[in-house]
């Protein structure tokens, strides 16, 4: 406990005090200085906020699901590699981290855009009039999120797969189970804590995103964090900004608790 004191002091100053002030700003009226629910009431009675809230939830869960579908096979493949090779390959998983979204969004146009590689191929094989809209809509947002979030799902699952007891797989094999059956009845159920931990990380991170959706999304892809930005910077309504921030934090918290309940302490790796 003694050794974490400096960190606790640091967190107290740069995290807990500001968070306390956000709570204060969300619940205390700027006019009267009294405790109030008026800002929360304003949030829940306006169609815009509720729609954006729903979009945020939709994008985060949809994103997490697609990232999982892309990330699980990668983790599974990596787990099967010899350690040295795995280390090299892991670096590739981290590659998206090193590029800013502003640069990536430009690169995406070259591949997915109207005159990009994908559409060029489609036109080449299917005729001049053919084309698919892969950017500036929900599909574009998903491309961006998968690109950003892949490491967050690959590594928790990879750690879990590596920690699985190989004896279980051998036992299943000896008993004559097929590889598919071993996967679905041994490997996959055992990897659920890794999956949940990964999904948790992705959902919570995507909930707070706004740059990727605004660069790659369409007109309906407005996130809660966009509204925080708008209220803080454009109209100086810091009470509403605080309310939205609090709701985002609460949503993330509820999700965390629900998952923890569902899987018990397993999520944090205690019983893998």
């Amino acid at each position, binding site marked *: 406990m003694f050794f974490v004191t400096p960190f606790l002091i640091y967190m107290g100053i740069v995290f807990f005090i500001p968070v306390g002030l956000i709570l204060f700003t969300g619940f205390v009226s700027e006019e009267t200085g009294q405790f109030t629910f008026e800002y929360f009431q304003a949030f829940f009675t306006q169609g815009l906020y509720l729609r954006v809230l729903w979009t945020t939830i939709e994008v985060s869960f949809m994103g997490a699901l697609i990232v999982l579908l892309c990330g699980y096979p990668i983790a599974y493949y990596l787990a099967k590699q010899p350690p040295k090779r795995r280390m090299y390959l892991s670096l590739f998983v981290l590659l998206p981290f090193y590029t800013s979204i502003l640069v990536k969004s430009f690169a995406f146009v070259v591949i997915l855009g*109207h005159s990009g590689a994908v559409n060029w191929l489609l036109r080449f094989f299917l005729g001049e009039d053919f084309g698919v809209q892969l950017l500036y809509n929900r599909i574009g947002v998903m491309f961006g999120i998968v690109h950003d979030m892949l490491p967050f799902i690959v590594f928790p699952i990879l750690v879990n797969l590596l920690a699985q007891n190989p004896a279980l797989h051998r036992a299943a094999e000896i008993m004559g189970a097929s590889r598919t059956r071993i996967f679905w009845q041994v490997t996959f159920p055992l990897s659920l804590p890794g999956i949940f931990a990964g999904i948790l990380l992705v959902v919570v991170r995507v909930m707070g995103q706004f740059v990727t959706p605004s660069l790659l999304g369409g007109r309906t892809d407005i996130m809660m964090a966009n509204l925080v930005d708008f209220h803080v*910077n454009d109209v100086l309504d810091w009470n509403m900004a605080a309310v939205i921030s609090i709701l985002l934090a609460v949503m993330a918290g509820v999700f965390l608790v629900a998952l923890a309940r569902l899987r018990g302490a397993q999520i944090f790796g205690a019983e893998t």
Partner: protein
Amino acid sequence: MIERKPRSSATRQKPSWRTTRRDFLGGATTLGVGIAAGLPVVFTPGKARASAVIRYADDGGRTGQGRDRLYIKPFMSATGIEVKTYIGQKNLAKMKAMVKANNLEFDMVNDGGSNLVSASKAGLLEKLDKSRLDLTHKLFPEWDWEDTLAWEYFSGGLGYNEEAIDDPPRTWADFWDVDKYPGRRGMRTRPQYTLEEALMADGVAPKDVYPMDLERAFKSMDRIKPHIKIWIEQTAKTIEHLQTQELDYTSTFSGRIFIARSEGLPLNFVFDMPNSSPQNVGIMKGAQNYDSCLKLVQWFFNGEPGVEWFTAFIGYGPTDSETMAQLSDEVKAKLPDPANPKANWVDVGWWGDNLEDVVKQYKTWLLT
């Protein structure tokens, strides 16, 4: 020295903050909200209050470097006043936090007119002592505020890629006519300029745009909505989409188009239907070197560098008629003429009063 007058017109005015606890809360709340929003908000202590230096906030970038070379350096040698340029976050939130914490990081700011008019409404700026400014040849009487001054204007309007499009729409009504002009269109996710375009497309004369008939504007927007390929959030992206030919034409700014042209990109701007906005300067509330700041305000408004500046940065125009008269015809041809009846002059005061409601209505409209 300067009287604080209550501003009756302010719709978003907040009560004045008295106690030091609240001062602290103000600053710390920005920090907190900033962290929550993932924005980097950095607080550094202000310099000694009594210094004779002007701390001047600018956007930086290409135009910022140009201003440094053409305005700031000559100002220093002409007056002997030292100017320290601050380049960093200077949005409304930052200004509010600085004024509330009574800890200014800059004394003077150069920013878009709508931002500074909002700052003025929120009581963040000092009143400009007009008796000590020479504004004899000021153009645009409608851009007139107590505590901020328009020193140049810039124009929004239609940009297009010359390689893809020979004949772009020349009126907003034509831009709305998707049969006559079938190209891929972009519009902005902000209502400023966009709703003006919608009204003009629907036949409203530029002089009758304000106060805006929102119902009519949104009805007009309904007609173009299904034909917009990309809704663009960031201004820089308008140029990028034209460059990569994701779009054939989009609402953008002439200054950006001409910077892109000077870099060799085949982009052009339609001058027949501009929406022009002021770029302002203002002095922060509580600035200690008010007199020096006032001199810099004057320098921006009609100082000698004007001619060279407006020649180097095509698309930006002066708000002083004498500077305007000295510009070459070639430069003037690329500016919306104050006499052109098809040019709209954005009423940033109207926007300041209505911003929050209209943005909410617009975002809701975008979502449906």
